[in-house]
Every structure is written in structure tokens, then in C-alpha cells.
């Protein structure tokens, strides 16, 4: 009895030991798996954090810009030009326009740099010795255009002195912000010693001040005046393209998905189409760019560098995403809903449009916004349809030449003035990221709202 007891006891002990050993192994493997997962997340977050800190560290300073407060005198000896033509002196609108354009050109050809030079000398300490060329490296070259535009708008300024804020040049900004090593020798500096000392004097006496760089948002790209380069043109170009993507990709994508899922007979052909749509979603974007260049520009003769072509190319790219997401959403709708609708005597079309599609709305919306966000950041296909050109104007229609936000980042990254454009590139990346986060935020908000309602 005791024997059997001790036998069973030892057997159960054996078993417990065995289980314990197995348990330890299982716990161990679970711990390892959890550890690996955690490590993967930490690593991924680490990379993201690294990227963000790098971009933010470089980009945030670019959101401040250095301005020069100048007292500009519209010196009549320099601004030697007749009075602006008045509408009353001309019989026809065309004559007046021609005269007005001629006057504007005469004004533009005046030496406005002399006006800027005079006001700079007035701001500098009395008797400060610096040659004209070195002096004019301090204000940005668009200063003369700003002053000229003021005069064209109000010719009565002639002979008056007005306070004007102009941008400091890119190289002056680099010096003020310390983007260039201040200890380098004269030969390695961009600005002459006199110009550098003068900037320091200006900083001390308040002629130079730093403010928020609104120019990034209100100006178009500029190479003549790098410090005034902004994102407005690229932003509007991107907006046009996204508009085209939404207008074209959503109806076509949803209609295609509804037809394939609800109406199309299951045949070899539809299977073939389905496989190809899935393949299309995986096609590298640069291929769409090549296709766009061949089909839209060379064959259909749409303009180069225009958002209409960019929008069409990105539509092609986004279509498969929307079709696949919509089909997935349609598949997820409970068969009970369909049968109930059909049972109540609804036609198939009524069933789809009155009952099934509304339920899938949140998913379609999310897919659309995510597709658009993806298209927003796409660069490669745009390079191939000529959208990496330098465009210094805001596109007023989708047929006008334009760039896009990601392409602008690419262009600034390639600018010669590295010291100035490295921070500005990072700033542009921050703007693009902000737009993307905003879009994704809207997607999440809308989905949760619509899901609650449904």
C-alpha cells in the first residue's frame, strides 16, 4: 500500500517535475518573444525619434528670420523717371495699359540698389568704411524689388523717407544665426570682414532683429533672393494635385470596387482583373511617372510641369489602394443586411446604394485620406513629368507650371548655399509632416465619428 502510494507519489512528482521543466521552457520562450517585440518597438521608435530630433533641431531655427530696419529715402536724383501715367490722359484702356507697362519697365530699370545702398549707409555708423559690393551683401537682393514695388504702388513717395523692413541676405543670416563657423579665416568666410563687423554693429544697435519667418508660408521659391524663398507655390501646386486625386480617384475607385464586388460575375476575367489591381498597388511609383510622361505629356499633349499631369499620375497610383480598401469594406458587410434588404423587395442596386455602401463609408473615407496622404508625399513620379523645375510663381490653374511640397524639399536639398538651405530644407520637411499628421488626424476623427453614428 505504502509502496503503491509512494509509487504514485513519485510518479506524480516526476510528472510535476516534467511539467515544471516544460513550463519553464514555455515561460522562457514567451519572455524571449515579448522581449524581442519590445526591442523591435523601442528600436523603431528610436529611429523615428532620431529622425524627428534631427529634423526639428535643424528646422526650428529656420522659422525665425533676420530683418533689417532701414529708413529708405526715395531720392529723386536716383529715381529719375516721369510721372506715372494716369487713366484720364488716355482715350482707351489698351493705350493706358501699354503706357503703364512702359512706365513700370522704366521704373524697374532704375538703379534701385543705389537707394538700398544709401539707406544702408544711413543706418551704419557715420564714416564706416565699406565698399558698395560688400555693403550690398548684407540685405537680401529682393530688397530693391520691395522698395520698387512700394514706389510703383504709390509714386507720391518720391522724395520721402519711409521705414522699411527688408530681409537680411542668406549669408548675413548664416552669420547672425551661427550657421557658419565664426572662427574660420577670412578666405573661408562668405562675407567680407567689414560686412561681418557691420552686421554685428547692426545687431547691437537694433537695426537687425529676428522675427517669425512668415516668408516661408507667404512667398514662392526664389534663387535670386534665397532668404525670401518660401513654400507657397509648392503648397498650392500640391493642393491642386490633391484636388484632382480626390475628384478622380474616389468616384472611379469606389465605382470599380462596387462593380467588381457586387455586380461582376465571378469569372476568369474578373479574377484576372483582381490579381492585376493587387499587382498595380505594388508597382513602384516611379513607373507611374514614366507612364505619365509617355501617356499624358507625349501622347495627350498635356503641359509639362503642371499639376494636372501630376494629379493624374497620382490618381493612377492611388486608385488601386482605394479599390482594394473599398472591396475589403464591402466584403466585411454582414450578409444579413443584404438578405434583409433583398427580402424586403429591394433591387440589387437599391440594396448596394441604400444599405451596403453607407455602412462602408468610414472605411472608404479612411482609405481615401490615407491614399491622399501617401500621394502627398510622393516625389519620384513628379520628377519625371518635369515638376522639379524652378517655378517662381503661384499656379492659378492646374495647367500652370508648379512644383509640389516634397519636390520643393528635393530642390532645396540641392541648393548651392548649403549653410542656409540645410535648415530651410528641414523646415520644409516639418511643414510637410504637419500637413500629413493633420490629414491622418482628420482620417481618425472622421472614422470614429462616422463609426459611432453607424
Amino acid at each position, binding site marked *: 500500500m505504502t509502496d503503491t502510494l509512494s509509487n504514485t507519489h513519485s510518479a506524480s512528482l516526476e510528472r510535476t517535475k516534467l511539467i515544471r521543466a516544460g513550463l519553464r521552457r514555455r515561460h522562457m520562450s514567451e519572455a524571449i518573444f515579448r522581449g524581442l517585440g519590445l526591442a523591435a518597438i523601442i528600436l523603431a521608435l528610436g529611429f523615428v525619434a532620431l529622425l524627428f530630433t534631427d529634423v526639428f533641431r535643424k528646422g526650428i531655427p529656420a522659422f525665425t528670420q533676420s530683418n533689417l530696419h532701414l529708413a529708405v529715402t526715395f531720392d529723386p536724383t536716383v529715381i529719375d523717371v516721369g510721372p506715372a501715367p494716369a487713366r484720364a490722359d488716355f482715350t482707351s484702356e489698351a493705350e493706358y495699359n501699354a503706357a503703364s507697362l512702359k512706365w513700370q519697365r522704366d521704373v524697374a530699370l532704375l538703379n534701385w540698389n543705389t537707394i538700398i545702398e544709401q539707406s544702408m549707409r544711413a543706418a551704419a555708423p557715420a564714416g564706416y568704411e565699406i565698399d558698395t559690393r560688400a555693403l550690398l551683401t548684407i540685405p537680401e537682393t529682393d530688397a530693391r524689388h520691395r522698395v520698387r514695388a512700394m514706389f510703383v504702388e504709390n509714386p507720391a513717395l518720391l522724395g520721402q523717407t519711409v521705414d522699411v523692413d527688408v530681409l537680411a541676405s542668406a549669408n548675413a543670416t548664416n552669420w547672425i544665426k551661427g550657421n557658419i563657423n565664426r572662427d574660420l579665416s577670412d578666405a573661408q568666410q*562668405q562675407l567680407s570682414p567689414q560686412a561681418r563687423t557691420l552686421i554685428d554693429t547692426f545687431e547691437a544697435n537694433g537695426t537687425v532683429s529676428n522675427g517669425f519667418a512668415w516668408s516661408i508660408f507667404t512667398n514662392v521659391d526664389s534663387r535670386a533672393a534665397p532668404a525670401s524663398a518660401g513654400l507657397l507655390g509648392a503648397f498650392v501646386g500640391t493642393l491642386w494635385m490633391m484636388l484632382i486625386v480626390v475628384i478622380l480617384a474616389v468616384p472611379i475607385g469606389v465605382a470599380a470596387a462596387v462593380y467588381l464586388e457586387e455586380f461582376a460575375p465571378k469569372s476568369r476575367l474578373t479574377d484576372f482583373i483582381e490579381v492585376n489591381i493587387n499587382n498595380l498597388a505594388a508597382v513602384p511609383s516611379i513607373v507611374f511617372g514614366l507612364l505619365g510622361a509617355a501617356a499624358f505629356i507625349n501622347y495627350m*499633349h498635356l503641359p*509639362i510641369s503642371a499639376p494636372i499631369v501630376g494629379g493624374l499620375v497620382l490618381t493612377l497610383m492611388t486608385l488601386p489602394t482605394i479599390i482594394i480598401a473599398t472591396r475589403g469594406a464591402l466584403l466585411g458587410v454582414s450578409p444579413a443586411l443584404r438578405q434583409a434588404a433583398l427580402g424586403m423587395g429591394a433591387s440589387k442596386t437599391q440594396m448596394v*446604394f441604400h444599405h451596403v455602401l453607407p455602412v462602408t463609408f468610414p472605411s472608404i473615407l479612411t482609405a481615401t485620406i490615407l491614399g491622399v496622404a501617401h500621394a502627398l508625399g510622393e516625389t519620384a513620379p513628379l520628377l519625371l513629368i*518635369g515638376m522639379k523645375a524652378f*517655378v517662381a510663381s503661384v499656379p492659378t490653374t492646374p495647367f500652370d507650371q508648379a512644383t509640389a511640397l516634397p519636390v520643393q524639399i528635393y530642390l532645396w536639398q540641392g541648393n548651392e548655399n548649403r549653410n542656409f538651405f540645410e535648415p530651410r530644407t528641414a523646415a520644409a520637411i516639418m511643414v510637410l509632416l504637419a500637413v500629413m499628421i493633420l490629414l491622418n488626424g482628420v482620417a481618425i476623427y472622421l472614422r470614429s465619428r462616422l463609426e459611432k453614428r453607424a
Partner: protein
Amino acid sequence: MKTALFASAAVIALAAFGTTAAFAQSRDTIQIAGSSTVLPFASIVAEEFSAVFPEFNTPVVGSGGTGGGLKQFCEGVGDNTIDIANASRKIKDSELEACTAAGVTDVREIQFGFDGIVFASAAAGPDFALTPVQVYKAIAAKVPVDGVLVDNPYTKWSEIDASLPDQAISLAIPGTNHGTREVFQLEVIDAGAEEAGLPEGLSEEEHTAALTTFRQDVVIEISGDYTETLARLTSNPDTVGVFGLSFYDQNKDTLKVATVNGVVPSNDTVAAGEYPVSRPLFFYVKGQHIGVVPGIEEYVQFFLSEQISGAGGTLEAAGLIPQPEATTAEVLAAFEAK
């Protein structure tokens, strides 16, 4: 179904409208593409141009290298082809033929100034005083030794000439899509090979191969712009890069320039013809587009004006080396005479 029908009809209508609108609308903005060396200058002129001529749109300036730009230029005549191709070398006969074949028969050449090509290395590194023959010996796949071509034996600059730094050879040169490459080939490699003395009795093919075959392990061909070359120098500070003089001028804090034949490259030495590696800069105008796309003629005249490309003009401040006034006058006369 009605909704779907309506939606698809709307889409088709929109697409049709889009294409017809494009066909109907003729382009009123000058479209430029080509050399990345000329790009900064052309962009500046484009901006100034729109300031002086408010009735015209700001010209759009694309890049793509001289070769890429001329290829686009020679695609044909019409709204969807470019009006002006920027070039850092003369147009080739083969390119002109392609142009003619596509119907671009009126090609007007505008030379507007000079640019120097410099060798530059990391500012923290040693000084380089190069000669064309040294550069040739550094990168050619085969070099002449005692009258025979042998596989290039050099691994360090100091092995080529004791005066050069004791540093591994690595040279970043522009890719074949760049006009700069052609000048580099002609003024540096061909000149260097001649000085080194290629063996007698090479067939034409062998001769060309000896001049154009580089060691892939030490030569990095850059197809992008100079920032890409600069990035190579940052990642490997031993690399010597080939840049445009104006690019070096803007990045003096990170780059150190090499002398060639003992001459320091600068605007003055290039203009005086002392610095050996320089080239004229051009742009090519499609004559058939003049009068069709508004503003082309004015753009050319404005570009060549004293205040833009002349001595002391806007472009000189941006790094262009102005050409003599007489040359500009000739170029302009030739442009207007056609």
C-alpha cells in the same frame, strides 16, 4: 445605379474637358531645362525678368543636365516641348541632327559667360596642387609606363608625385549627362594623357579607350548635382570632388580648392584665361517658338543686358564670369539677325 452612372459620366466629362482645355490653351510661360551649372543663373534671370516685364509670366527653369535638357529641347516643336535648353557645353552634331529630324530647325546659340571647373577637397584635409597629367594618372584604367600601357598601379596621390598628399586616391567626377564631364575630359584627361605620352601605334579605338576608361574603384560618377558630390566628400573626407567654381564659392567654409598648374581658380584667373579648366556657358533658343510663346525674345535680350550678365551685373555676384562686351554684342546680333 443612377448615382454611379452619373458619377462615371461626370468623370468622363471632366477628363474630356481636361484634355480639350489643354489642347485649346497655348502655353504662355517660357519653359527652360538643362544644365545644372546654368540653372542658378537662369533662375535668377527668370525672377529678375518677371520683375522688369510684369506682362510676362516668370519663366520656369528645370534641370536634368546639359544632355537631358538638349534631349528634351530636340523632341520637337509645340506646346509640350521646352523653349530654351541651358547648356554648359556646345551642342553636339548628333544632337543637332536629332533636333532637325524632329523638326526643330531654328536653333539659336547664346553664349553668355564663363565658368571655371575646380577640384576641391574637405577643408580640414591637406592642400592639393594638381596638374592634368596627375589627375589622368590617378584615374585612368591603364597608364603608360616606359612606352607601354599597364594597369594603373597607383593607390595614393603621393605615389604619382611626391608633392601630393599621402592620401588614397578617390575622385568624384560628374556623370556623362553633365556638360562639365565633357570639359573635364577635354581639358584635364585628354590634356593629361597627351603630356603623359600615350604609346605610339594605338588604333583609334584603343586610343579612345585609353582616354575614357577610368578605374571604377577610385572614380565616383555623380549623375546628380554638386550637392551630391559634396555629400560624397562629407561621407569620405579623402575624396576629391569636381565642382563648378560658383558652387565652391558658396561653400568655401567646407571646401578647399586645389590649384591646377599652380593657378588658384578665381573669377579673375578664369576671365584672364590663366586657369586652364574653364568653359563657356550657353543656352539654346528654339527659334520656332519665338512669337508663339510670349517673351522669349525679351528674355534673351534681358539675359544678355549689361545689368544682368555684364561685368558688375547681377549674375557676376552669383558667380558667373562675364564675357567681353564685344562677344555679347556679337551673340546678340547673331540671335536677332536670324
